[in-house]
């Protein structure tokens, strides 16, 4: 403790080292808006100008209008800056390939400012690129790998250049992202290491200063774990403090070194400490959900005041040291709870809602007719001896129905008079049962057995009456290679038609353009794929009506297009 105190009296230097994992994809640059221009930046002993654009960073030597250095942001793994107090003020970019480029800011008067401006901007830009690019490519790749049909489609349509890749993905990705969010979160949330604060071990830099190495992961962790700090950050940076000042103060504050008793000095974090305290208190007041660990209601009947042999007086006289010790303990509990909560926050959201709704219909104190079932479950768990019982099969979750009628009938339109309750059904079933029980076969009016059996044979598959209706299964008539080709054609056509129909109603110029394109795509498909296939089956003397349905579908699309076009013409003229 003493050590920490002594050290912190000296100003501490701060190094920010931003660190990002590898990223893969290059995004095509669309526009090149220049965000920042820094003059007098040296690269390989050559003076020049540094440009930060929307998608890349570039440097051109003085007097020339082309860039000799240009890196897409997506290629950059991290940036590093020279420590304060060094004579050269530099910024280094490390690429994923391992190469690095160093820029030396040479403008004596403003070098530091220039560098920081560049650094700050990069710091904002880099994370965006890393995530976006990465995720999309991965997702596409994954989808193609997982879904052979889609892969085939991709080959049929994109590789053979019926439609462009972007068009192909345009509708797919949206679809998939919806699917994904429904089934499983596309990206698993990574929890926070409990020891993230331990990773910021301060190091002495040799001249009575302290260095804290902060990575963006750590900053993220701090923000996630202590929302109060995040709020402070948002409030104060950059209007009141620079980022560096903010973190310097953070590490100097009583908040970070909670074991020190508050000396009364006001810092911006004292409020955070109070907020934390409040949060902790509210957590405590809320109590615990699991009755088996609720120490408050553990004792049935406590001894009355004054009885008992051990009466440790209310800790009236605690030394300063003891106080600081209990502060540490509180802090650890709080820290662990926050870390745990930060990891679960995402997952918790829906379940929280559920518990809220359940609490409205029964958890309130007045009406605990509806005892929180958690208690029952925990009790049952506690008395269970799994090895004494014969296997009770896999555990199932009981269906909890508020209205069983609704479950068995499904959602029905609101015409209530058609609605038969389960009582009705039971009644009618019993009615039928009654009728069956008093059913008496009328033996005189029965068909002779020979006629009956001939009727049955006639109606069986392959029988006399069934012949006309049975279409010989396509699978038996057509060779398998043709079959699979036909299948591919169907999916491809389906995909194209889906694109086509999704343009309707055509109400934007973009859609207009698209629908025209889609029609030409369809035509192309028909000429390059469908026709050859039709010719092929003709050559092999197979019935042409194999493709008739495909033709019909495409024809329908043409008709629609035609109708739309004539209407548009009419409107134009």
């Amino acid at each position, binding site marked *: *403790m003493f050590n920490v105190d002594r050290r912190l009296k000296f100003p501490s230097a701060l190094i920010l080292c931003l660190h990002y994992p590898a990223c893969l994809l290059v995004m095509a640059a669309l526009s090149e808006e220049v965000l920042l221009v820094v003059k007098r930046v040296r690269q390989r002993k050559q003076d020049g100008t540094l440009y930060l654009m929307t998608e890349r960073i570039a440097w051109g030597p003085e007097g020339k209008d082309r860039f000799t250095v240009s890196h897409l942001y997506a290629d950059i793994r991290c940036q590093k800056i020279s420590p304060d107090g060094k004579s050269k003020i530099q910024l280094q970019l490390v690429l994923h390939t391992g190469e690095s480029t160093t820029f030396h800011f040479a403008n004596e008067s403003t070098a530091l400012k220039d560098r920081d401006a560049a650094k700050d901007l990069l710091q904002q830009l880099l994370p965006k690129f890393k995530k976006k690019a990465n995720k999309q490519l991965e997702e596409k790749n994954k989808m193609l790998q997982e879904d052979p049909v889609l892969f085939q489609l991709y080959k049929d349509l994109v590789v053979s250049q019926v439609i462009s890749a972007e068009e192909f993905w345009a509708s797919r990705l949206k679809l998939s992202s919806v699917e994904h969010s429904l089934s499983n979160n596309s990206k698993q949330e990574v*929890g926070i*290491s*409990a*020891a993230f*604060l*331990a990773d910021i071990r301060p190091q002495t830099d040799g001249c009575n200063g302290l260095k804290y190495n902060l990575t963006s992961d750590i900053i993220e962790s701090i923000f996630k774990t202590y929302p109060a700090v995040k709020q402070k950050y948002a409030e104060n940076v950059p209007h009141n403090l620079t980022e560096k000042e903010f973190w310097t103060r953070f590490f100097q504050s009583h908040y970070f070194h909670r*074991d020190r008793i508050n000396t009364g000095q006001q810092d911006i974090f004292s409020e955070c400490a109070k907020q934390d305290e409040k949060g902790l208190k509210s957590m*405590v*007041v809320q*109590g*615990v959900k*699991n*009755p088996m*660990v*609720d*120490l*408050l*209601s*553990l*004792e*049935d*009947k406590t*001894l*009355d*005041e*004054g*009885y*008992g*042999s051990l*009466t440790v*007086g209310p800790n009236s*006289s605690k030394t300063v040291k*003891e106080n*600081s*010790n209990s502060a*540490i*303990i*509180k802090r*650890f*509990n709080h820290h*662990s*709870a926050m*870390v*745990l909560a930060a*990891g*679960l926050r995402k997952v918790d959201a829906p379940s929280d809602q559920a518990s809220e709704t359940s609490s409205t219909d029964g958890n309130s*104190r*007045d009406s*605990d007719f509806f*005892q929180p079932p958690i208690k029952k479950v925990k*009790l049952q768990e*506690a*008395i269970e*001896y*799994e*090895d*004494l*019982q*014969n296997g009770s099969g896999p555990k199932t979750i009981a269906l909890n129905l508020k209205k069983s009628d609704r479950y068995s009938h499904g959602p029905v339109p609101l015409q209530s008079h058609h609605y038969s309750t389960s009582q009705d059904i039971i009644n009618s079933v019993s009615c039928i049962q009654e009728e069956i029980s008093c059913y008496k076969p009328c033996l005189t009016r029965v068909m002779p057995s020979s006629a009956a059996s001939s009727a049955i044979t006639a109606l069986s598959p392959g029988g006399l009456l069934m012949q006309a209706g049975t279409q010989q299964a396509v699978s038996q008539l057509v060779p398998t290679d043709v079959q699979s080709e036909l299948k591919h054609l169907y999916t491809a056509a389906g995909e194209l038609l889906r694109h086509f129909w999704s343009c309707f109603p055509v109400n934007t110029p973009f859609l207009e353009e698209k629908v025209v394109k889609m029609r030409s795509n369809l035509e192309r498909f028909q000429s390059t794929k469908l026709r050859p296939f039709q010719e092929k089956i003709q050559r092999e003397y197979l019935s042409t009506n194999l493709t008739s349905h495909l033709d019909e579908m495409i024809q329908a699309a043409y008709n629609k297009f035609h109708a739309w076009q004539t209407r548009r013409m009419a409107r134009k003229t």
Partner: protein
Amino acid sequence: MKLNIEGLLVYFPYDYIYPEQYSYMLELKRTLDAKGHGVLEMPSGTGKTISLLSLIVAYQKAYPLEVTKLIYCSRTVPEIEKVVEELRKLMEFYTKETGEKNNFLALALSSRKNLCIHPEVSSLRFGKEVDGKCHSLTASYIRAQHHSNPSQPVCRFYEEFDAVGRQVPIPSGIYNLDDLKDFGRKKGWCPYYLARYSILHANIVVYSYHYLLDPKIADLVSKELAKKSVVVFDEAHNIDNVCIDSMSVNITRRTLDRCQTNVDTLQNTIQRIKETDAAKLREEYRRLVEGLKEANVARETDIYLSNPVLPDEVLQEAIPGSIRTAEHFVGFLKRFLEYLKARLRIHHVVQESSPQFLKDIYEKVCIDRKPLRFCAERLRSLLRTLEIADIADFSPITLISHFATLVSTYSKGFTIIIEPFEDKTPTIANPVLHFSCMDPSIAIKPVFERFQSVVITSGTLSPLDIYPRILDFRPVTMASFTMTLARTCLCPLIVGRGNDQVAMSSKFETREDFAVIRNYGNLLLEMSAIVPDGIVAFFTSYVYMENIVASWYEQGILENIQRNKLIFIETPDAAETSMALEKYQEACENGRGAILLSVARGKVSEGIDFVHHFGRAVIMFGVPYVYTQSRILKARLEYLRDQFQIRENDFLTFDAMRHAAQCVGRAIRGKTDYGLMIFADKRYARADKRGKLPRWIQEHISDGSLNLTIDETVQLSKHFLRQMAQPFRREDQLGLSLLTLEQLQSEEMLEKISQIAQQA
């Protein structure tokens, strides 16, 4: 399955049985047959409760005239509820097997706080508030007032119960606390009073120790329970402390100040009543002259459980004349109070016996022994007469009156210690009068005398012979059962040294030693790296834990532990600790893993189980000796030595080891469970310590695991954990530690089973 226990047909609601359960039932049956008391130790997680219930219920069914009632006492509310649920399972099995409808009535009884359904009253948070509020709605004179003045609020549930509830007995069945509440709501009856009334004719009652051992409550609730009952104290390893606590009194200056206001209120009330309703006081006087004859008759005819606070002499005589009138009694109380105040004005510690105290009080203020003895009874009568609404307000004066009665009744077994200040803060005056009971047998004596069989059972009762001695009773059976295991699922290790060979111990001389603290830290750190899910660590005291945590924090050990697991720490605040516990379980549940730092003798060590992944390792840092410098403890040790010939050291070690065993036993709750038990103190290796651990732990400590270094511990633990992580199926257990009915009936197995029980 259906078992034949020496000719008794026992329904056991499972398809398989552990051999020790069978053995346990045999011993239990012998105890019941002999109509005597028993002490039985069986490891937790071997299905003690269900064995007990199965056998006693079968016994009750077979011999309904011999055993009429089972009184099952447990310690915590969750425990009570668990017992009732197991009972429900048993009864369902009965119904299934015999096809008869169950005609047993079994119910749980708990305090008003857990049973009240009155919307306003039940929303109060603390038990005392609930009791007070309930009393203010249900007291007899309140209800009398309600008759004349309907605006006086009363509890409609109680009224309804009082009107009709007693006529029709509650239908037979199993009633847990929630079932009672549901039933109460349905009928509109007060579940608490219903339960209290129903325990008189119930076949099985499950409630907490206090209802039988605390004379104040036992007198209200349990005094009419039938003599032919079987009483079971489960988790009874701490029963002596419960007895002592219920009989000890502490008086501070604040108590006396509040007493003063109580006395003033009494005086005013008497004055007022005298002006308005003198007849009432006269009536009371007449009653007192007649004495407590009625109570005496009842006790003689064997209806009531005797009350240690209401000595026999009191019953046989009339209340002495000097305190018979209300005014005289209040004057008497005043004098007594002034005397106590004077006694608290001291500057040095005083320790004296009850006779010395009585002599002194006689000399100083001329208070005789006899009226003092009637004090509690007299005050009760007065409070009733004066129609005091809020009894809770009068708890200080009630406390004083109990003290008066106890001190004048028992010349032995109690000591009076007056301390002017706390040891730690000699400058701050905070005088306390401790009137402490040193003899647990006083409180439990009525129970042993009254009921035909009392069974004391727990997972940790070693050494068995000490309980009969300190509780002063003669058991007919004493047995300790081991846990038959198909795989050794517990791994006790005694760590005596750090890797630097420095001995690890929490003994007083070395506990502040830096090397010891660091070694403890390293042990926890190393374990956190290899043990999956949850680790629970216990310290010997809260102060010790605080100091260690602080120095671990300074040395950066905690930070390193955090790389492996989250850390949660018990605090003195119960609500905070509950939250920490829940978060701890959450962290174990979601795979992150966590460490809980806790305190032996604390609430966690006594009431919370760490089953399966909630506790894969328990580390006991140090030997949890009780704080030996306290004067109360010294007096008690002296008493034990003089009265029971138990040496001080023996008792202290016994006490420390039962708490250590309790702590480490928290992790093993069944045969499919497994866990490491790490005793981190050199002293555990000694025979006198080791020998006092329960047999089921002791027999797994090999000579090779006695004085390990941290590295060796880690190696052994890794090996153990790897083995335990292998799949464990029923077939592995069958025939060894799990039996089918056929296996149970074989000669060979019966031979084996007879060895499981070790008679003490």
